[in-house]
């Protein structure tokens, strides 16, 4: 198939989706190509979900500017898109006097970056913000927040789609050629896309995409971070983000606990350079270290509180021997007209994404006259809360109107049949079990799908006509089942 657009975005992470959504404010024929079966399957679903306030980045860098701007945009954005975000604030803790100059430095830098409300506070106040936290003093940043990163990515994509951007999932960009004055993109599936402007938002693969157009100056050094997800039993333990004051040249923030908007706690991320950007395995040594660390930070932890592991990879521009971070590269290539290039969008890429999108669309305007689309609707339909979070009266009313709300499919997260059906009917047409879990939360709880997977299978088979072969974990290469046991249709067992 051949498709023609004005703008083509390569990569459906939070950055690509934010760009798509920003573009959808204008009358422009735009599309996004994503190699996976859903958006957000790269770094964007594999991070801490923290909206950084922006004191950590050197003044004048893109990271500083875009993070502070992105953070400030999140209230409106998350409200419009129905994405959960909580401004819980952060304590950056100096453990002793020696760390204190670091706090002052960070405060100064933050003030210069325009971070609102920064304060160096004493131990007393620190402990009022987060009970039990030990340390000497802390830098308090009230605008630090948490968000569900995959929900944000999906919501940006859905809103962009609703406003006219096309999403092509399962389309891996394999080659790019210049057909003056346009670009021609060929995908592994054999389709061709042409566009006036190409945006490289391919995250860990940014350098590969660069090479497709002849840019050789960038290199990505994948750096994996592993996490544990802790049971919701511990919800409420953390009332703020607590980080140790950073050490010089550390590749990340160091291991710490991060509450999620859904009431879990993450412990991680670690940092380990690898060759394979998509090696998301968790490793025994790192896992053991995380458990030790967790035991120290949360003495009340039990073995059963560890419910899952995951890992994500940072798109670093510096090799391990150099360490540290480089600034984001966001460039409108002068040598390659119409190639907008993003490289090294590691942390705080999630926070910065809406601001990056504004900047990128500004660059697109250098090439195309973009007129605002009066029909643009920034609001995504649906509800912010899960059904179980509603007050009892409202639950009862909804159940009376729609019985599917009365049936619980995922017992751990109390997700109803209605919510599972809505998730499977998502506008992007993503149909994997992972797509379902990121939308409906089903199977993300303590039993990790032991209870609900058979129920979801039954539901999708009986009401949507799925065959066993249709169930994929995250894409075509991850079939869940090999087929029916017997040729006769399942489900009859129940009527015995």
């Amino acid at each position, binding site marked *: 198939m051949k498709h023609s657009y004005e703008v083509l975005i390569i990569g459906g992470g939070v950055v690509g989706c934010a760009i798509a959504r920003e573009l959808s404010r204008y009358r422009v024929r735009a599309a996004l190509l994503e190699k996976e079966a859903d958006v957000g399957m790269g770094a964007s679903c594999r991070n801490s979900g923290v909206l950084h306030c922006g004191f950590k980045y050197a003044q004048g860098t893109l990271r500083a500017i875009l993070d502070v701007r992105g953070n400030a945009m999140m209230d409106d954005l998350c409200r419009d898109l129905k994405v959960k975000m909580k401004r819980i604030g952060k304590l950056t803790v100096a453990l002793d006097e020696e760390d204190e100059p670091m706090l002052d430095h960070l405060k100064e830098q933050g003030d210069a970056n325009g971070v609102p409300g920064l304060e160096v506070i004493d131990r007393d106040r620190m402990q009022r913000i987060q009970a039990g936290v030990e340390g000497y003093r802390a830098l308090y940043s009230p605008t630090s927040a948490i968000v569900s990163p995959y929900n944000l990515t999906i919501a940006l994509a859905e809103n962009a789609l609703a406003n006219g951007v096309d999403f092509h999932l399962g389309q891996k960009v394999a080659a790019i050629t210049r057909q003056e004055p346009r670009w021609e993109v060929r995908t592994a599936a054999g389709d061709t896309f042409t566009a006036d402007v190409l945006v490289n938002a391919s995250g860990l693969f940014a350098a590969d995409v660069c090479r497709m157009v002849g840019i050789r100056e960038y290199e990505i050094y994948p750096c994996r971070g592993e996490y544990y997800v802790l049971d919701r039993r511990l919800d409420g333990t953390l009332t703020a983000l607590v980080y140790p004051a950073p050490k010089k040249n550390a590749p990340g923030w160091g291991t710490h606990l991060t509450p999620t908007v859904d009431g879990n706690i993450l412990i991680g991320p670690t940092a380990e350079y690898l060759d394979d950007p998509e090696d998301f395995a968790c490793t025994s040594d790192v896992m053991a270290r995380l458990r030790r660390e967790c035991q120290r930070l949360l003495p009340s932890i039990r073995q059963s509180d560890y419910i899952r592991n995951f890992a994500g990879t940072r798109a670093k521009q510096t090799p391990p021997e150099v360490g540290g971070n480089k600034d984001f590269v966001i460039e409108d290539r002068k040598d390659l007209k119409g190639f907008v290039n993003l490289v090294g969008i590691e942390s705080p890429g999630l926070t910065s994404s809406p601001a990056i999108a504004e900047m990128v669309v500004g660059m697109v305007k250098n090439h195309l006259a973009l007129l605002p689309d009066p029909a643009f609707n920034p609001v995504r339909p649906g509800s912010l809360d899960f059904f179980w979070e509603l007050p009892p009266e409202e639950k009862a009313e909804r159940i009376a109107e729609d019985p599917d709300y009365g*049936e619980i499919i995922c*017992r751990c997260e109390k997700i109803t049949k209605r919510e599972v059906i809505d998730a499977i009917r998502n506008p992007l047409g993503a149909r994997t079990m992972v797509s379902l879990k990121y939308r409906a939360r089903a199977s993300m709880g303590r039993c990790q799908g032991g*209870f609900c997977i058979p129920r979801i299978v039954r539901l999708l088979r009986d009401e949507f006509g799925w065959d066993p072969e249709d169930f994929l974990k995250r894409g075509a290469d991850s079939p869940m089942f090999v087929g029916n046991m017997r040729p006769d249709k399942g*489900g009859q*067992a129940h009527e015995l």
Partner: protein
Amino acid sequence: MNSKASPIEKIQREVVVIGGGPAGLAAAIAAREAGCKEVLLVERDRILGGILNQCIHDGFGLHAFKEALSGPEYADRYIRRLPGAGVEVMDNTIVLSLSSDRVLEVSARGALRHVEAGAVILAMGCRERTRGAISIPGHRPAGVYTAGAAQNLINLENIMVGRRACILGSGDIGLIMARRLTLEGARVEAVFEILPYSSGLPRNIQQCLNDYNIPLFLNTTVTDIIGKGRLEAIRVAQVDGDRVPIPETERLVPCDTLLLSVGLIPENELTVQAGVAMDPVTGGALVDDTFMTGVPGIFACGNVLHVHDLADWVSVEAEEAGRFAAAYVQERREEPRRRTPVRAGEGVRYVLPQTISGERDFILSLRVTAPWRDRTVVIRDGGGREIRRKKMMRLHPAEMIRIPVKKGAGADGSPLEVSVE
């Protein structure tokens, strides 16, 4: 104020049983037969019977009915009695919350209800321990299932999960699934068990593994999971005395499916929510010799209380709990009576009940910490005086031991201790 009537329907029942597995079924029938007029059984599934519905193998009922029944047949013996007994059943209905004053929030297609109960019997069963809980390193591909989930898919949903399987954990479900997969044409490479002994029943080792030449490797665990899309292989290694993998022994086992049979966890979210004190060893509530928890009027039985190896004992225990719950509602018994602690001593992993009154005969349930031959289980009182002893040829952690104890034991309030000698 909103003048509109609340959309939440409020009802009252004397006894509410949560869960319609063998425990809930037996408890409900017993409570009704003990004279309670209103006994409501709430089951979230569309069919009663609990986990037994997916246990299509036989071996149930050998004690209770002196017959080898399949799980569904065993459950049916009780389900058939419900109408006659006059038990009210709400299926397809889930209990979402439970308060300490016994108000249940109950959700079903079409209605959200609040049920006020005179007594509540917890019979929610258990769930399986997952990969996350035992921290298996590696990728997270499709093809890794808990054994019970695979059993459900195969036996109830007609879905085949894989062609070449390994099983981690020698719990009964894993053993039964090894046989089931073999019978369905899959190749089962091996069962791996980290402990030096199997955690399944000996009869299952024989009938499910040995009869099909499926090897069981003890002191062995999975150290890596390989495959980004679908499972491609696992790495296994022997472990040392501290259960730490020995790197030199590591080897690769190609397979597309890994089933986990690594333990069951009583499903006590509601119990904890109601403020019931828990036993960290059993994972269930602390109960007295009437199966009442620390919260008056809330009783527990079956796998939600402690994991049972045989459904027959679940039924026996649940009948008791049902009768005591009925008595509680009828007599409005005053609290507290004497609560003499019963403690697990040398060689004993846990005992149940954890407190007794001394006023009645009771069955002491216990599990031992390791397999032994020719030992004696001894119950002593606070003064070290022997109250009861039971000589046993075989003791095994996989098998629950039940010892009847006469009333009077612990009547002086001094704690009892149970040990293996």
